[in-house]
């Protein structure tokens, strides 16, 4: 084992509040070996980002490092003057930020911003320009000479993140701290950026600290792992060792609560109870004890030290039980209600969409009409009672627009929406009333979907009133509803702010169920939640669906979550359905290259050093729906289309129809090749957009 490039020892960071100090990082210690990728993983409020900022000495005010050391190349960074620290930032340690939309100065050219990173460290202006062009080429920006003088808003999200990475590697810093570098990006773009990071590390020999909430990203990229919870390191070790046998209950719970893209679908997720703690109100003792099934008296009073686990000497864990027993004992498995047997959905569809189009673009301007912008362009779907249809796609593909059209929040410009055999497309008085009684909607953002001024009682009563429940009975019904989603009925008098994200989302579900709908539309209901909370909501949804026989349209970008809940899956790209069929079949053998690539891009929580190398990386970005490509809409990025094989002119000339034998249909001219898109190394090379230079 080589000497660590960076060593963090007993780091303490505190915020000065009104009259008291709030400790946000508690004696954080870890080291990073030169040339490796260290993952720091944790949920919101775990202190992972603050750790990154503490290393950079960029703790937001009124916070400050109040203890410990950060040893980098033999020097303690916490002891340096601000001027000395400045010569280190950007030159010795560089940083990549989360949101590429916000990380670039909107009024300066991209080139200027890269040059600045060089100029402030003493590079001459002329040399900086040359180096900037070279850097842009290195991070895979096509035609750098033309694009160097463009502004950030002229770049797509993925391209902007490449620019941010170019800034980070400008001075060939030996250490790069990447703070959730792909969280704001779609999964195919995430794969592009992660691949770029890995490539650059191999070429430049940099060391990377990768901060993330995604165990899948960690498994595929990181050699070593630090797990944080409540401002402390709770577990540390080699990634492979930790994934093989986690030695802290939190790590284990985190891994178990993730839905698996290739796991057993019907298995109930093991949800972690409770919510991630607020740093200002940490529980005493081990911060995880209120959510831990192994918790003992000592856990409630004493903070466990981070120490080597006797029987697992590769892992360090901060768990009283694991340290005493020599290893983390198996969880007392409380086999709670196995999911009820599901009826096969053979009935007539309750909801049918025929060739629905939603036009967003056509606005009357002063002199002309703008071109139509079809966010949804000819979609046909159906959902049967008791069945869950998963709708998958990246941001901007039209999935939310489509789902809102079903409940009349957006009016379809063409096509028909049929509910229980009756056409409701007009959304006139009677049709709207019918829709409301039958279809309800669960929104994405648990913080925006509840009116902060109303109590839970008022929120649920309003919904019950809509069903026509008499005033006197609403109280009883509201309590019943809260019980249904697993919340204490005595919470009725509280305001939404008293609840965590997962609880709020369950209240949102209760509100939707108040009108006793038969169809539930869930629009990314868990994407705003922490992983350990997601499982609570997913389980509630699955239970209710089975108990009430609901038809569910489940919209998400996360393939694993969709896989876990859905009977059938539809994949959407640029306003169209490109593939549709039974979930098991689609995941086993995709018939559209886009589906195959989505699956390949999704990180899996299984440590695998070759995972990144095997991924198919899509070229470029999603085209604008205002001006979609001719023929097949996916052809501009397709790894098996005309880009890889110029003889396939048909993809440019003909729009493929959604077709296929039986229930599994895809809109691809070469469906038999689709599966190959994700596995063949030959197509991989052709589709690889970044490996030049």
């Amino acid at each position, binding site marked *: 084992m080589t000497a660590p490039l960076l060593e963090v020892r007993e780091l303490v960071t505190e915020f000065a509040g009104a009259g008291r100090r709030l400790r946000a990082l508690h004696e954080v210690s870890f080291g990073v070996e030169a040339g490796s990728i260290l993952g720091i993983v944790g949920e919101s409020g775990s202190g992972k980002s603050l750790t990154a900022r503490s290393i950079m000495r960029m703790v937001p005010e009124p916070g400050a490092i109040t203890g410990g050391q950060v040893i980098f190349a033999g020097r303690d960074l916490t002891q340096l003057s601000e001027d000395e620290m400045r010569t280190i930032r950007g030159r010795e340690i560089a940083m990549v930020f989360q949101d590429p939309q916000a990380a670039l100065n*909107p*009024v300066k050219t991209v080139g200027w911003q890269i040059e600045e990173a060089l100029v402030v460290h003493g590079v001459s202006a002329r040399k900086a320009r040359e180096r900037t062009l070279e850097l842009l080429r290195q991070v895979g920006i096509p035609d750098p000479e033309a694009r160097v003088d463009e502004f950030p808003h002229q770049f797509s999200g993925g391209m902007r993140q490449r620019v941010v990475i170019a800034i980070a590697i400008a001075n060939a810093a030996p250490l790069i701290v990447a703070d959730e570098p792909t969280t704001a990006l779609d999964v195919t773009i995430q794969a592009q950026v992660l691949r770029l990071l890995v490539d650059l590390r191999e070429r430049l020999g940099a060391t990377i600290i990768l901060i993330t909430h995604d165990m899948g990203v960690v498994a595929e990229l990181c050699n070593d792992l630090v797990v944080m919870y409540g401002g402390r390191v709770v577990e540390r070790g080699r990634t492979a060792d930790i994934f093989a046998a986690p030695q802290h209950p939190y790590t284990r719970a985190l891994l178990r609560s993730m839905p698996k893209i290739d796991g057993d679908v019907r298995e109930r997720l093991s949800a972690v109870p409770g919510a991630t703690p607020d740093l200002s109100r940490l529980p005493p003792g081990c911060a995880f004890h209120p959510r831990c099934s192994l918790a003992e008296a000592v856990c409630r009073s004493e903070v466990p030290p981070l120490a080597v686990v006797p029987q697992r000497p590769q892992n360090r864990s901060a768990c009283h039980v694991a340290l005493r027993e020599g290893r983390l004992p198996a969880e007392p498995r409380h086999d709670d209600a196995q999911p009820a047997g599901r009826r096969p959905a053979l009935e007539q569809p309750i909801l049918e969409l025929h060739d629905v189009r939603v036009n967003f673009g056509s606005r009357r301007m002063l002199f002309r009409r703008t071109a139509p912008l079809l966010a949804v362009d000819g979609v046909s779907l159906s959902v049967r009672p008791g069945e869950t249809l998963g709708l998958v796609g990246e941001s901007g593909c039209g999935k939310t627009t489509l789902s809102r059209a079903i409940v009349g929040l957006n009016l379809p410009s063409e096509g028909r929406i049929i509910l229980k055999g009756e056409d409701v497309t007009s959304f006139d008085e009677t049709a709207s009333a019918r829709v409301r009684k039958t279809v309800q909607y669960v929104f994405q953002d648990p913080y925006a979907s509840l009116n902060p001024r109303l109590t839970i009682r008022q929120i649920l009563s309003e919904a019950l009133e809509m069903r026509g429940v008499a005033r006197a009975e609403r109280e009883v019904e509201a309590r019943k509803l809260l019980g249904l989603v697993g919340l204490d009925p005595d919470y009725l008098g509280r305001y939404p702010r008293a609840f965590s994200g997962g609880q709020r989302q369950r209240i949102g579900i209760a509100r939707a169920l108040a009108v006793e709908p038969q169809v539930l539309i869930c629009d990314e209901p868990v994407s705003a939640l922490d992983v350990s909370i997601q499982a609570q909501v997913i389980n509630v949804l699955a239970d209710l669906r089975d108990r009430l026989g609901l038809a569910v349209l489940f919209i998400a970008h996360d393939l694993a979550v969709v896989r876990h809940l859905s009977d059938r899956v539809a994949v959407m790209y640029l306003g169209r359905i490109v593939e549709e069929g039974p979930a098991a079949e689609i995941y086993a053998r995709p018939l559209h290259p886009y589906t195959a690539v989505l699956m390949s891009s999704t990180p899996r929580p299984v440590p695998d050093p070759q995972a990144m190398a095997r991924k198919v990386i899509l070229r470029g970005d999603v085209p604008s729906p205002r001006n979609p490509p001719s023929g097949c809409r996916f052809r501009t990025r397709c790894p098996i289309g005309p880009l890889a094989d110029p003889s396939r002119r048909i993809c440019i000339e003909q729009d493929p129809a959604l077709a296929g034998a039986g229930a599994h249909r895809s809109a691809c001219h070469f469906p038999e090749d689709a599966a190959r898109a994700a596995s063949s190394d030959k197509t991989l090379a052709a589709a690889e957009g970044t490996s030049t230079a």
Partner: protein
Amino acid sequence: MLGFLARRLPSVALMLLVTSIVAFLLPRLGGGDPALVVAGSDATAEQVEAVRVSMGLDRPLVVQYVDWLSGVLTGDLGTSLISNRPIAQLILSRLGSTLELAISATILMVMFGFALGILAGSTRRGVGRAVLDAVLGALVATPPHVTGLILILALGIAWRLLPISGEVSILVDPATALSYLVLPAFALALPQAGTIARLIQARMYQVQQEEFVDLARAKGVPPRRIAISHVLRNSMGTAIVATGIRVGELLAGAVVMEAIFGRNGLGLMAVDAVSSRDYEVVQVLVLGAVVIAVVVHLFSEMLLAALDPRIRLDLS
């Protein structure tokens, strides 16, 4: 830039059209028959009618409006019915005084607004922030006329440092002219400067929270350069638009300033004209004030567009 102009033009045109109609209608709405005024109080009904015809007042309103507007556009502002002199001539005789006040106040407004704003935006805590917040709060809360009266009481009466009433043309005796200008110009400028400074301060606080400022720090950029190239550069648009909006109110404030400080400018002329029912003069001054305010506002928006590539590039 052309695209930007084309987009803004309809609303500016509408604004100017409505203003010109309001200005044109003012004498009619004010009551009183212009023909009667010209003909004199002892004229017979026939004489009044003859005057009415000779003035073209018997024609349809639309025709009169087009006639008046084309006159204004070609520099013929009409004649004052009271003093019987061309309005253009009347305005020119008073223009110098108002120009001196407006220009000096604008310069002070921009200087103090930007300086205080940038200072306040870079002072985030401690006594400095408290003092600056208090100063800005006081400036914003006190309108020009009250500021003017306070300045008169303090510097004109209590200490007798500066003259408080009257004026001398800057072309005749610059030093004395300035001493007469100081109080009204400051009184006019300070409240608007406070408003501008507040907006700059808020915008700077906001920009300082942006992730690109963090990224600049992570690059190793020195604080001074961050403040100028990143924070200030991104706050300038707000500052410029804020200034553009305030110019109209500054002109309006000049009316009261002239009354308080005994300056014989266009504002006082407008007030006197209202009192003496010389509405033909008022209508030209009203039109002029609004046109200047609208044009300056448009100009500031164009400057903003030039500064912000997101607007500049998307609309051209």
